């Protein structure tokens, strides 16, 4: 290329020599200055180049993800919650019904606070909702709809329609509401659903519960939350910057939620509830041959629909009730088994060779260690006279079992009763089950700091003292008597959709002489059938054959020192007479029992008069139904 400026023929060569010199120097100056600017700009451009490489090379992955997040939105599609039905007749007891709720779309609301207070004035919103509402708005993203009123009444709908132009971002949405048919009847089994807490949302992040999702809070609703909620589906959308759907990329339909079928028998459940008459207490009936629960009633109860309807609040009156309707006595109530423990202890005595069916003792109405010291009194002041094992069970001789307990140790009692399910959770499919107490020396030391006394063991002889059981535990133990040793895990659920929940045999209690099972059963039949049996009041020769045992339990706080040998048992009895619980355990019909029943009525005072008739009613009724089915 030709360098023009060096050409002598340039027209500018006509200029004066000094001008030429000046030109040369100005060119040099210009080049020098240009270099300064170039270096300066080079440094600036270096920053841009580094940034470009940073974005496109080093952080590329991040930004690809970021841009995908921008454009792709996954909208969860929820299946409707599974139904709960009874397995025997497929009748639905928990369903979803269409209801209306008032919702507000936060990001299209100009002035949230004034809108809320306006609705509050016109329709009325509960204070709790407003409170939780402002917690939500201050903490999380605004891109959500929030529920203002759940399950609107017709009046509320009308009021809304009257003013709806004032609140363009507020709408009525239809939704499915959980509804328990015969609400209170199944309250303690079904439990209830409630608004999800932020903690629960975090715990199961993979399910993507919505902020106003409802979740099982207790009972089967909680245990089977995973099955009942189903598997979530998705719509994957491509959206533009305004969140407008451009196209649908993918659609995964939600898989249907599972329906749960219960082993409960509605008639037995109704019968038990009716007979409890709202008194504090519990009834548990299960099929000893497989552990399926046929009735599980805790009284008093509540209507789960109140909780299903309400977002929050409105349950204060239930919580503050001193009779504790929320408390599931059937699985969580700890009661001393009292005399109902005697058949089990009799087996222990026979097994360890401490007693046999022929040995008789003289029941003078009280027991003393080596004939001296403190008197342990029986329930009958004058005593039962000469008592063998059968009579001791039939008449519920306390003295006989004081002596038996005296001959054994707490360690042997513990190891013999443990396989029956005492002192540990049965594993029923409900949350909040109690463990009961099957005491050991260490247990007492840990609880009271005191050593185990002989007197403590003697108290165990009549099912008092430190031992407690839940009605459900007792029902499992009774089933073991009924099945001659089989321990099934109790279960409320017989089927999930079409797949059966197989019974689980937890344990097999074996004794040296199998005949003793039958002899114990005979004694327990005599409790009802013999003229001297403690539950002879329920005897009716047309009825099916029932084996049973009454109990009258004293509730005495375990931490109270005075329930020990230092005190006259008689005095304790008299003082707390009013607080005795009536208990009855039983099973039938003999010889092929299909129902094991435990009835506990707090402050019922008499196991025979109050508890036993309910058990008999259930067994009879259930048998009649079985017969008619055949």
């Amino acid at each position, binding site marked *: 290329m*030709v*360098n*023009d*400026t060096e*050409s002598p*023929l*340039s*027209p*500018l060569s006509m*200029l004066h020599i000094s*001008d030429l010199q*000046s*030109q040369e*120097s*100005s*060119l040099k*100056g*210009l*080049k020098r*200055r*240009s270099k300064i*600017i170039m270096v300066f*700009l080079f440094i*600036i*451009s270096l*920053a*841009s180049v580094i*940034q*470009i*490489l940073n*974005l*496109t*090379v080093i*952080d*590329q992955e*991040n*930004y*690809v993800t*970021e*841009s*995908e997040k*921008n*454009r792709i939105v996954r909208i969860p599609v929820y299946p409707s919650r599974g139904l709960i039905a009874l397995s025997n007749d497929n009748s639905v007891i928990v369903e979803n019904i269409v209801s209306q709720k008032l919702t507000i779309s936060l990001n299209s609301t100009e002035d949230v606070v004034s809108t809320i207070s306006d609705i509050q004035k016109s329709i009325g919103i509960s204070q709790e909702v407003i409170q939780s509402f402002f917690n939500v708005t201050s903490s999380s993203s605004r891109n959500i709809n929030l529920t203002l009123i759940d399950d609107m009444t017709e009046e509320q709908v009308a009021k809304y329609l009257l003013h709806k132009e004032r609140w363009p971002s507020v709408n009525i949405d239809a939704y499915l509401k959980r509804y328990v048919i015969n609400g209170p009847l199944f309250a303690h089994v079904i439990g209830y659903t409630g608004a999800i807490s932020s903690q629960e949302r975090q715990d199961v992040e993979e399910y993507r519960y919505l902020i106003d999702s409802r979740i099982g809070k207790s009972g089967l609703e909680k245990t089977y939350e995973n099955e009942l909620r189903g598997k979530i589906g998705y719509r994957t959308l*491509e*959206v*533009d*910057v*305004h969140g407008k759907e*451009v196209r649908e990329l993918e659609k995964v339909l939600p898989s249907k939620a599972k329906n749960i079928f219960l082993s409960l028998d509605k008639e037995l459940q109704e019968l038990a509830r009716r007979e409890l008459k709202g008194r504090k207490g519990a009834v548990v009936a299960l099929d000893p041959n497989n552990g399926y629960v046929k009735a599980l009633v805790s009284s008093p109860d509540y209507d789960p629909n109140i909780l299903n309807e309400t977002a929050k609040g409105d349950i204060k009156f239930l919580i503050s009730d001193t009779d504790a309707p929320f408390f599931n006595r059937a699985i969580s109530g700890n009661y001393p088994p009292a005399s109902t423990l005697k058949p089990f202890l009799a087996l222990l005595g026979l097994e360890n060779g401490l007693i046999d069916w022929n040995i008789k003792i003289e029941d003078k109405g009280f027991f003393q260690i080596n004939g001296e010291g403190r008197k342990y009194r029986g329930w009958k002041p004058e005593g039962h006279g000469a008592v063998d094992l059968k009579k001791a069970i039939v008449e519920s001789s306390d003295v006989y079992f004081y002596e038996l307990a005296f001959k054994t140790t707490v360690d042997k009692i513990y190891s013999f009763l443990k396989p029956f399910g005492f002192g540990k959770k049965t594993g029923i499919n409900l949350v909040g089950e109690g463990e009961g107490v099957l005491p050991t020396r260490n247990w007492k030391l840990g609880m009271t700091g005191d050593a185990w006394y002989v007197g403590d063991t003697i108290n165990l002889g009549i099912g008092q003292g430190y031992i407690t059981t839940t009605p459900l535990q007792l029902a499992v133990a009774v089933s073991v008597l009924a099945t001659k040793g089989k321990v099934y895990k109790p279960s409320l659920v017989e089927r999930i959709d079409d797949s059966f929940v197989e019974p689980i045999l937890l344990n097999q209690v074996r004794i040296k002489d199998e005949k003793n099972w039958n002899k114990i059963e005979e004694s327990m039949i005599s409790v009802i059938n013999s003229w001297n049996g403690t539950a002879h009041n329920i005897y009716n020769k047309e009825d099916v054959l029932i084996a049973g045992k009454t109990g009258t339990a004293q509730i005495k706080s375990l931490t109270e020192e005075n329930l020990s040998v230092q005190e006259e048992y008689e005095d304790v009895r008299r003082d707390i007479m009013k607080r005795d619980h009536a208990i009855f355990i039983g099973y039938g019909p003999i010889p092929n029992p299909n129902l094991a029943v435990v009835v506990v009525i707090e402050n019922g005072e008499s196991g025979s008069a109050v508890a036993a008739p309910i058990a008999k009613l259930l067994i009879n009724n259930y048998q009649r139904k079985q017969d008619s089915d055949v």
Partner: protein
Amino acid sequence: MSNRPLDYNLNKPFSSSRFSLSLIFKDNILVFSVLVVLGFGLFMLYSASGQSESMVLRQLAYAVLGFLGMLIIAQLSSVAYQNILINLYWIGLIMLIYVLIFPDDSQVTKRWIDLGLFSFQPSEVIRLILPLSIAAFLTRKELKPKYSEWFISLMAVLLVSFLIYKQPDLGTALIVFASGFLPIFLTGFPVLIIILSLILIGIFSPFIYAGLSLYQQQRIMTFFDPNADPLGTGWNIAQSKTAIGSGGYFGKGYLSGTQSQLDFIPESHSDFIFAVIAEELGLLGIILLFLAYAIIIYRIFFIAFRSETIFGRLASASIGFIFLIFILINISMVVGIIPVVGVPLPLVSQGGTSLATHLLAFGFVLSVKKRSGW
């Protein structure tokens, strides 16, 4: 030419046809590079505008008119423009005063003049007119400028910058000041004075800042710290960075940039078109664009440093620098290392005013080049 044998040209095939083309273009490399970038710009604008044919056609019209204007300007010798360029300053000044007195309500920062047939933004024009007129003024005598001339130029630049700052547009005011100061610096304005002024500004800026009203302070703060407004400018920059980063090495493909096509990039057709290029064509596209730009800039300086007049040299070097500075400012803004200022990507961004003025300026650069026979 004198060094070569006489039959040099005759020995070359097709020399006659090349001769005729370079007769009009004067510098084929520069003109072709400009055409490549223009074509590329229109191609990208189609994608960035959401495939708006009308916008592309409008831009094409400006490009054709600007290109013709460029070729016309290129035909005369640059010396002919010197007086016109000096007086252009006054025209620019009048335009700025006009938009201050009759503000256009539609846009706050970019003021327009509507001439019925077409409307344009004075500040876009001023950015190029000012350095050219200053260069013309300083080189009237083919001598190193006197201090008095520097002083007059400096005042002229400050006046224009102040008027733009009043619009109010601090960002553009700073850019206009920088481009106006460019020829002053290139003519050898003492570095000592520059350093001293910078120190003085450094010392007094806190006092000046304190003296401003709260509103003005806020405006300055958002200019220097866009993150202070995370839902506005900050969000835009984040989207722009996401677009560039997600483009990776080879881009998501023409018309397939999700950030661009789904409107996540703000002003994707104008100031932020670079983000669209990066997202759809990737690092490769960026490098190719940079190469084309580099050739243009190289040719401008090539012509500048071979010019026989101080005026030609200074004016075309200024144009070269301003072209480079605008590219740098736009890209630095789009990649998020400087605050957002209204500077389009030269020759590519949508906007007729910017496109036309750049092309006319290139026309001037071509006029500086002596028509050579090659």
